Every structure is written in structure tokens, then in C-alpha cells.
């Protein structure tokens, strides 16, 4: 089975610019997650979708971050405007049903200068 696809692989932007990341989960996986991983730390959940509905966005900085999952398949995470502290790896993951392991993509490394 094809894995979780993410793009772009790398992105460098200046502060106050906007950026978007794309994720295509494993086919049939209903749950999709976006994690932020700052260098030297473990991943932190930003938002979780069940099909096309949000079930947890408690740690998403909603003044600058937004995410959507149209049609319950692929998803886009946007940052506008970016800050220096947003420099991190953004990981997308999916799972097929509750109580099952998460499958991760290769992530997008964002550098904000």
C-alpha cells in the first residue's frame, strides 16, 4: 500500500510570508493528524480530523494556522503570517480506525528567516 504523501519536502520563507503544506493519507484512512516537530523535541499535535470534521485543534495557533480536509481525503495546513518560531518539521499522519497505530509521512521541513 502507498504511504502517507507530503509536499513540499523543504520550504524556506521569510517571516510574515504565508506557506501551505499538503498531505495525502493512506487510502481509506479516516483519521488524519498534523504534528509540529521543533528541532530536538518530540512531535506535538496541531490538529486531528476524523473524515472531514475536526475532532481536536486545541493546540493549533488559530490566529495564524489553519487546516482543512475537504472531502475527507487529502489535507492542507496553512501558516499566515509565519513567525521565526514556526521553523520546524510538519508531519502528517493517518490511521485506519481507532486504537490503531499512526502511519507518518516524510514531513516538510520549514525554515522561517
Amino acid at each position: 500500500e502507498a504511504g502517507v504523501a507530503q509536499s513540499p519536502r523543504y520550504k524556506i520563507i521569510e517571516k510574515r510570508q504565508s506557506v501551505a503544506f499538503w498531505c495525502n493519507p493512506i487510502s481509506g484512512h479516516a483519521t488524519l493528524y498534523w504534528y509540529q516537530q521543533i528541532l530536538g523535541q518530540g512531535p506535538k499535535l496541531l490538529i486531528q480530523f476524523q473524515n472531514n470534521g475536526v475532532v481536536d485543534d486545541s493546540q493549533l495557533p488559530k490566529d495564524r494556522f489553519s487546516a482543512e480536509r475537504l472531502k475527507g481525503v487529502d489535507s492542507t495546513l496553512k501558516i499566515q503570517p509565519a513567525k521565526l518560531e514556526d521553523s520546524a518539521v510538519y508531519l502528517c499522519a493517518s490511521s485506519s480506525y481507532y486504537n490503531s497505530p499512526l502511519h507518518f509521512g516524510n514531513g516538510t521541513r520549514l525554515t522561517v528567516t
Partner: protein
Amino acid sequence: AQTVTQSQPEMSVQEAETVTLSCTYDTSESNYYLFWYKQPPSRQMILVIRQEAYKQQNATENRFSVNFQKAAKSFSLKISDSQLGDTAMYFCAFMKHWRGVQGAQKLVFGQGTRLTINP
């Protein structure tokens, strides 16, 4: 809220040796899942092993095994006959059991242990 703690930021061993990575967690849940994920330089998180809290038997996957101590809330990973390809960041993670109630079921990670296998 659940927390996961990995107290060893870095470890280094020689190839073919056995190494144990430590993890402790805090939760009030009685049923949950624990995982070890490996993250090589490619950045992809790869599932190494999974343990269900209601199972007393420790999980094993080839050279990887865990020591799950539920009362102590401890979940260590043992890598036997270590190989150069085991070099990576290792993350311990917790997920509570879904009981059929609408809501989030997320993976909570520790800070990670950087493991280096030397030739």
C-alpha cells in the same frame, strides 16, 4: 493530561551490543497503548513496536522487545544485536484506548533519545 518522559537525550553503543532505552509516562487511564517509533534522518516516523496495556506479556518484534511495568508506568525498549541501521531518534508515545465515545484519540510523544550505533 498524559505525559511521556524520556530521560536519556543521547545514547551510543557498539555494533552488535544490546541497548535499552527508557521511558516513563503519567496517566490516569487504565487502558491504553504504548509505542516506540524510530525516526531516521529521512524524518519519517517508523513504528518499531506496540504494547497494549491490558496485556501482561511484553511485546517482541525480532530484535526489539519491551519491558512494560504498568504499576511503575515504565516502558523501556531493548534492542538486541544492534546494527548500524538502528541509528536514529527513538520516541516513546502514548495513546489512550478509544471507548466508543466521540472525541480525539491522539498520540502523545516523549522528547526522544538519539541513538548512535558505532561500527
